[in-house]
């Protein structure tokens, strides 16, 4: 099995420990990663998608064609990359005019968008291609005795029509929960599970308002689950939950800290990865919970 790893911006430059986690975990599970050499930004929402549809799709399509030439699907750990790439693909696949305009542009660099590669989010890919049981069998460490709260991530769920890997009901997501349970964790439900974390355009536009959202989520998690760890399915959510807590504490909005990791970082730890390489850039103190995972 082989898949093209689309690393994106935030993972490559802000949280390369998450990139390293993907580069460790997939081969450890017998899945080869292709680098998709020459990939660019997805492009993110505040850039080309905010200028026009064809330009958005053209930049996206160049990335798609890199994977298409190799006959591979595109794999991401970032909700924004996942959403932008899946939406550009959807637009080109359902609208022949958009596709034709994009291919007119791509012709200048000798490329053509065909629509043959799918866009996949890492944990959904593993859920569907391997399944929780095969992952469970490969573990060297487990999360037995640990309680986690989940942050699935907006773009992993909506709009469901553009995604290949679907939840049965995107307002009652199960994939991240079942994957964490496969690692041995107890997954607690909290009422603000589906809320947005506030990262991204909102945080860039108004940090105070964006932090209100992550505060509401953190308080809901703490009161209703009191988790040992927050597990995200998106690199942007990871950055938001990992960096916002210190601000909220210094502003006396919260009086606790919950360590935060992306699902792929925890999976990599459970498969035997070096802890510094796959979790070393966390701002929250993940040390004690990583110790417990490595002892489990």
């Amino acid at each position, binding site marked *: 099995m082989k898949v093209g790893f689309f690393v994106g911006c935030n993972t*490559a430059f802000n949280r390369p420990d998450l990139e*390293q986690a993907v580069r460790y975990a997939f081969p450890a599970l017998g899945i080869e990663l292709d680098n998709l050499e*020459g990939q660019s930004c997805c492009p993110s929402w505040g850039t080309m998608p905010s200028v026009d549809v064809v330009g958005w799709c053209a930049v996206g399509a*160049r990335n798609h064609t890199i994977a298409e030439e190799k006959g591979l699907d595109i794999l991401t750990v970032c909700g924004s990359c996942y959403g932008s790439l899946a939406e550009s693909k959807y637009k080109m696949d359902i609208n022949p005019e958009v596709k034709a305009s994009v291919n007119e542009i791509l012709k200048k660099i000798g490329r053509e968008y065909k629509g043959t590669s799918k866009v996949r989010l890492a944990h959904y890919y593993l859920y569907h291609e391997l399944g929780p049981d095969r992952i469970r069998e490969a573990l060297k460490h487990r999360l037995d005795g640990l309680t986690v709260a989940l942050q699935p991530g907006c773009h992993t769920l909506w*709009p469901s029509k553009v995604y290949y890997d679907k939840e049965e009901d995107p307002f009652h997501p199960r994939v991240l929960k079942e994957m964490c349970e496969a690692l041995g964790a107890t997954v607690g439900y909290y009422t603000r599970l589906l809320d947005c974390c506030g990262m991204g355009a909102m945080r860039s536009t108004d940090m105070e308002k964006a932090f209100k959202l992550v505060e509401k989520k953190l308080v809901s998690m703490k009161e209703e689950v009191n988790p040992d760890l927050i597990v995200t399915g998106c690199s942007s959510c990871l950055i938001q939950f990992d960096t916002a807590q210190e601000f909220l504490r210094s502003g006396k909005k919260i009086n606790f800290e919950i360590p935060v990791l992306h699902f792929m970082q925890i999976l990599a730890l459970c498969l035997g990865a070096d802890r510094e390489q796959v979790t070393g850039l966390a701002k929250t103190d993940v040390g004690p919970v990583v110790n417990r995972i490595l002892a489990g």
Partner: protein
Amino acid sequence: MSNVQVATGVINLSEGDPGLVNEIKELGGEELLECIQCAKCAAACPMVLAGFSFFNKRVIHAILLGLRDALLDDSSIWACQSCNRCTEVCPREVNPFEIIQAMRRVAIREFALPTLSIEGLKSLYDTGHAVYLAGAGSTRAKVGLPDKPPSTVANLEALKELQAIIRQTALADLGIIPMGESDVTETCEV
């Protein structure tokens, strides 16, 4: 909304711009007129929860009333998370997210875009990444990775391909960012 409008709470409908509806439809918001203002989208929107003046339902309402300046003077449209809860729940398949994007496209054509978006576009053109940290090499090395990811920042030919594409898009016609030949040096964090 202008100060007068805020102070009086009155919107003068005769000052509305009837051309705005067509602009939105041409820039990707094709289903605009399907909206029945039922507010399912608002009930699902993070911007409502965070307290922004405009969010999906209100943006659509303001567009239908032609309140161009009210929308351009407010930063709300740029705070949309593109989360697409609204697209999922809309019973009329209006795709409210795409209408907010279309309103951004209107704003950009009037150069009414946030500095961060300009920087993001510039960084995308110059490096291939909207978010790029020139100093990330040492962070990457710390976790055992090469200085650069296998993207346009490590592959000049790929960057030139991307730039050739961007020069063919509407962005080039708008003249918001310089589009010359450049090397990867700048830092941008959006």
